């Protein structure tokens, strides 16, 4: 199966500067992903212009299939020359990953990227090559489930300079720290946040340089299929249930009537939990073969609130209510298939029923939008 790249970044600006002089650009391609990090000469606006030009030009050209040599030549011809330093200069790290697990790395004057798998660093030999007067370090290697790559600007390595450590904490210490994070199963966003907190602390909250890091975690994609609402036509009950149960990965059912329908088709019994970990929403149920079974509207509504508040899976650990468990699974999944039944519960349209029960489909659409905004691949089918 194809690999999934879970990618997150952090950027700190040099103390007193509004703009970070480093730039990051990530482009998804039909074959995988391209990530570029650049550190512009100086700091502030000028550095920002140099570095953003570099990452934009490089990723656009590589995306179109250009060779590194062409990219380097184009950069030399395009970057404005600094009046003070008489130099057109910005560093770069370019990483190309294919979903089959091939990796290509080109580095120019940036600290070497950290490559690891699980809790260990992996040695990736570089070969220097002169291209239009610049020596670029290139490497070709393989990545697989559990691999991780961290691209950094030198501001990360220099953290702590003159303070905790005379020369900053340095490549080796950073590598050892990243290996500890690599050994855990936290996702890229939490991984890079840990690193950011540490760099902030080492700089005592006043970074002496722009600092940037991009974390790429490689893994098998986590798949999730969610069945929400019974189909409009009863004759589709068996088909949607079959699709759910035949899907690889996590299986989620949202909705009381939907749960009852699945149980009926499968000839199984639902067991409803009778404690209320969150008094705002109904409890969850259990159904053999289904990873999560929740009530519908109220749970989905609360789940959307959690997503909108920017909740992270780590904050949801240990929470037992349906909305938290649903949000946690949605956030941890990489590819999600929603099967949405459009049967209208006549009872929910009655004037006797609180109005928030009637707007389930809008809530589901908003949840899908939240997940897509996080870079997840989401498909939606209606029945």
């Amino acid at each position, binding site marked *: 199966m194809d690999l999934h790249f879970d990618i997150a970044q952090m950027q700190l600006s040099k103390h007193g500067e509004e703009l970070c002089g480093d730039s990051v650009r990530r482009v998804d391609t039909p074959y995988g992903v391209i990530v570029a990090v650049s550190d512009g000469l100086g700091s502030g606006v000028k550095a920002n212009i140099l570095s953003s030009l570099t990452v934009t030009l490089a990723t656009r050209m590589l995306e179109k299939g250009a060779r590194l040599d062409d990219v380097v030549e184009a950069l030399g011809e395009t970057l404005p020359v600094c009046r003070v330093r008489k130099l057109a200069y910005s560093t770069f790290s370019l990483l190309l990953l294919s979903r089959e697990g091939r990796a290509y790395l080109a580095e120019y004057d940036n600290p070497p990227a950290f490559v690891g798998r699980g809790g260990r660093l992996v040695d990736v030999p570089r070969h220097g090559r002169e291209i239009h007067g610049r020596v670029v370090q290139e490497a070709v290697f393989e990545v697989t489930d559990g691999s991780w790559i961290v691209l950094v600007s030198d501001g990360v390595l220099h953290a702590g300079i003159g303070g905790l450590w005379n020369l900053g904490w340095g490549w080796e210490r950073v590598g050892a720290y990243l290996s500890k994070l690599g050994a855990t199963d936290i996702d890229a966003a939490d991984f890079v946040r840990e690193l950011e907190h540490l760099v902030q602390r080492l700089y005592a909250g006043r970074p002496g340089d722009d600092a940037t890091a991009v974390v790429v975690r490689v893994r098998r994609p986590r798949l999730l299929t969610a069945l929400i609402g019974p189909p409009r036509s009863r004759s589709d009950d068996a088909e949607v249930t079959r699709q759910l149960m035949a899907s690889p990965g996590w299986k989620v059912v949202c*909705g*009381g*009537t939907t*749960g*009852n329908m699945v149980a009926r088709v499968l000839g199984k019994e*639902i*067991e*409803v*939990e*009778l404690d*209320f970990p969150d*008094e705002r*929403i*109904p*409890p969850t*149920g259990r159904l053999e073969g289904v990873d999560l079974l929740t*009530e*519908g*509207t*109220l749970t989905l509504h609360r789940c959307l609130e959690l997503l909108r508040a920017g909740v992270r899976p780590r904050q949801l650990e240990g929470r037992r209510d349906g909305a938290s468990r649903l949000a946690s699974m949605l956030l941890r999944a990489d590819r999600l298939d929603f099967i949405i039944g459009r049967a209208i*519960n006549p*009872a*929910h349209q*009655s004037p*006797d*029923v*609180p109005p928030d*029960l009637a707007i389930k489909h809008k809530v589901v659409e908003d949840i899908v939008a939240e997940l897509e905004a996080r870079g997840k691949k989401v498909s939606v089918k209606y029945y």
Partner: protein
Amino acid sequence: MVTITVCIGSSCFKRGADDVVSEFQRLITENGLENKVVLKGSFCMDRCTEGTTVKVGDTVFVGVVARDVPRLFRDEVLTRLQLPGAGRGG
């Protein structure tokens, strides 16, 4: 053995099914009937507009609120168990 099923689906929940559940739980414990009464939940009993829906054995009651529970417990549950305690449910 008597089985009580409380619907905790969207509509019944909004109408206070959680309070109905805790009231039944309280009465079961107070009467020491943990081995004679089974309290279960259901996601939907198809009576959404009339909720909260409660089933004692096979008999369905709709529109139940927490303050109805002691009477229901006395008249339906204790009676079915043929306990002399019928009448002390509340």
